[in-house]
């Protein structure tokens, strides 16, 4: 049973557009929510992370929005670029980042 559900499975966006990827979780004890970015042939790399004491975190063009009552969080990529084309994974854990539960992944394609 997938404890973190991610959508959409794939996403195609035009250059300059906004990419939005959503995740929903079930375990209310989760207290750490990272997003990982994976390019073909590479391992995932941490992109941005949030803890539930804030509702939003922004780093450059990347923003996490967090809704604790709905048990949902999302990644927004503003001004999407072809170089952002990758697979994105949301994840969640409780009591630190040791035991991450990952979403299914979203393959993002940004067309030039």
């Amino acid at each position, binding site marked *: 049973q*997938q404890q973190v559900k991610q959508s959409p499975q794939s996403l195609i966006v035009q250059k300059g557009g906004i990419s939005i990827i959503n995740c929903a979780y079930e375990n209310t004890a989760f207290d750490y929510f990272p997003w990982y970015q994976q390019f073909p042939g*590479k*391992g*995932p790399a941490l992109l941005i992370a949030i803890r539930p004491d804030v509702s939003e975190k922004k780093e450059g063009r990347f923003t996490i929005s967090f809704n604790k009552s709905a048990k949902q969080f999302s990644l927004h990529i503003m001004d999407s670029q072809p170089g952002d084309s990758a697979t994105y994974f949301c994840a969640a854990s409780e009591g630190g*980042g*040791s035991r*991450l539960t*990952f979403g299914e992944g979203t393959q993002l394609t940004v067309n030039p």
Partner: protein
Amino acid sequence: DVKVTQSSRYLVKRTGEKVFLECVQDMDHENMFWYRQDPGLGLRLIYFSYDVKMKEKGDIPEGYSVSREKKERFSLILESASTNQTSMYLCASSLTDWDEQYFGPGTRLTVT
């Protein structure tokens, strides 16, 4: 820069063979992890280790074992490989529970 290396990028083994996947990190990290990545399922934790000779089961440990004799090295062992273990295997490490995980490039294992 943190570097996590995995012994092979591609591996082909026969059903019933014993398979060793090796992972080495060069940053004196406490924690090391083994995941498998399958399309539509994201990353699933197999085992992790928080210290030398210490290990804990992840979400899908069946059919796998691990060994951590030295801090920098974490091995995943398939005692008797089966076709349903064909997958991408990713190793990761982190300094402590609250630090990001750094991933290796992965080993694509095919069991025929």
